[in-house]
């Protein structure tokens, strides 16, 4: 494509997975205890989408990447300190309490509105990227809903590979059952791609890219107004799993003995 792609990446933020999560009720909606204090990261599969977007933009002249993120402003700012060094993008922030318990329909609506209002976005060149499933709600529905709202109906989820073919059409590999991939050819943008891991390693931090990004990120964050989300879900209970196993620790046994015990266990019906 001669004048490149317009790539919009939708990415939320999630608590660092090493943190202990404890649910608390905040009004009628659950939240995480000390949620605003938990260190956060860019949602992992959406982060892969961002790396893939940056890589694609670097190889298709005239392309541009926007990162649209709905999250509490102060947490988003923290996460951007790291993410801004990984890839060049323009941030479109939405200050909203979008955690795992927020309703995907409401989140999709504010994201679609934000994308709608990006000035200079050429819909005919639009590749709408995001994570396939988030590490918070993990529903895999937000990108589909945004796609429908923006009337983009060539959609792909669980994407691990995206290749631009010589004629400009797109070859897309989506995860399916049994560790296999479904291969489709789409004639071109606009498309929605919900990424899984993709194929790129996490880019190293590049302070220069970070500085350039921050020049637009900080003013965008300052300008963003706080938005509330409609809650359509009624939570009857939210609990961590109850079972904690009583681990039997087996030491000082020979490899033969352990193997025999494992064989017996594997063979039991």
């Amino acid at each position, binding site marked *: 494509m001669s004048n490149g792609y317009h790539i919009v990446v939708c990415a939320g933020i999630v608590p660092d997975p*090493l943190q202990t999560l404890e649910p608390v009720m905040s009004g009628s909606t659950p939240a995480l205890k000390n949620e605003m204090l938990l260190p956060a990261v860019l949602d992992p599969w959406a982060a892969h989408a961002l790396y893939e977007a940056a890589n694609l933009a670097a190889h298709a002249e005239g392309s541009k990447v926007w990162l649209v993120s709905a999250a509490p402003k102060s947490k988003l700012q923290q996460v951007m300190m790291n993410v801004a060094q990984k890839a060049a993008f323009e941030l479109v922030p939405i200050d909203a309490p979008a955690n795992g318990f927020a309703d995907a329909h409401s989140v999709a609506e504010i994201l679609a509105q934000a994308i709608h209002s990006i000035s200079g976005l050429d819909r005919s060149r639009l590749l709408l990227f995001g994570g396939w499933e988030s590490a918070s709600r993990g529903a895999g529905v937000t990108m589909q809903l945004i796609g429908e709202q923006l009337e983009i109906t060539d959609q792909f989820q669980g994407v691990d590979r995206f290749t631009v073919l010589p004629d400009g059409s797109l070859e897309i590999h989506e995860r399916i059952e*049994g560790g296999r991939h479904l291969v489709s050819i789409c004639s071109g943008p606009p498309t929605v791609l919900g990424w899984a891991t993709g194929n790129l390693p996490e880019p190293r931090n590049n302070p220069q890219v970070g500085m350039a990004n921050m020049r637009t990120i900080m003013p965008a964050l300052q300008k963003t107004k706080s938005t509330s989300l409609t809650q359509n879900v009624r939570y009857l209970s939210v609990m961590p799993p109850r079972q904690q196993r009583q*681990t039997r620790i087996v030491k000082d046994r020979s490899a033969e003995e352990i193997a025999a015990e494992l064989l017996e266990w594997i063979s039991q019906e």
Partner: protein
Amino acid sequence: MAESILFLAHVDESGKTLPKAAYEAFSAAVDLAHRLGATLTVGIVGEGVREAANTFSGAGVRILGVAGPDFAHPRYRSDAAALEAICREAAASIVIAPATSRFLRVMAGVAERLKGQIDTHITSFDIVDGMLSAKRWFYRQRLEAVIQRAGRPWFLVMDCGCQDAWSGAQGTAKIEMIEVALPENCRRTVYAGVRTPNIDAQTIRPDAKLLFVAGAGWCKKQPDGQTHLREAESIILQFLEESGASLGGSKSLVDQSGENQAVLGFMTHLNQVGQTGSTPRHPKGLSMCCHGEEPHVVGWRFISERRAVNLDPNCGWARGKADVLYVADAFQVIAKLNSLLAAKAVRTEEWCEASHELNPAGCQQ
């Protein structure tokens, strides 16, 4: 509120029947219809739906179908159009579907078209205060919630392995076919096949009784100061072959292949278990050379019996994450286990041969 239920399914890759996940979700739908006193309709999509529909003939329900070559393979536009047409015809308040990869990537779009609401990865249903409620996990299997919605239609996509599969008498089902004419732009995307990853063996086996998880320890320097990658590769592959287990990996291990480090050649991101990987369902799981950190172990939520082999007695598995932790060298344990499995296979074969001589009708393994 009087509810009506639509159950949706698609024909599987054989073109003749439905995926197992569909019969499991159908059993939940039948039970729910009974408890809510709701009507139940079935909608099926595929190139041909006759044989699949016949498997529901014993259920005594209304069956709607959309068929044709355009619906043979998964594609968002055609699947969404077919499912939308069925939903409009059935006009149900609750739509239940199995969490196959084909449906997971289209059902939310259909819900949006119907001005409905959707929840996926449902593990069970219940009736609370006369209202339907559903259970699902949040934060990657770390918090479990029971939810309700007032909005209708409510689309509920049910995870695999949560119910016994439904089975009933087969006959010739009455199918009401719905014509769905696709506009030309629906063919902007074309199906180009299914690829199996380029690996020595097919290592992901969703129906296996055992999940074997390999961690980054397999690629680390061992007590002799050396790495033993080729040995690790061959003993793991041998174990998979002898045991029929499905292979999972920790993130640290699968990431190494992305970074072009020396690594187990057959390990890909598709094998990754955990927070940013998969959450497979197998009755048993055996981990070796994996530390058992929380982001990894959340992927074990649906593994009932768990054992681990690790050199470190204080690894994550020791802290209530496994039933048994063997503090031992995995290289030695798996080598012994492979010889025991091989010996067992030989004994079984000999026993089969001997019993065949006594009873040529068959050998029960």
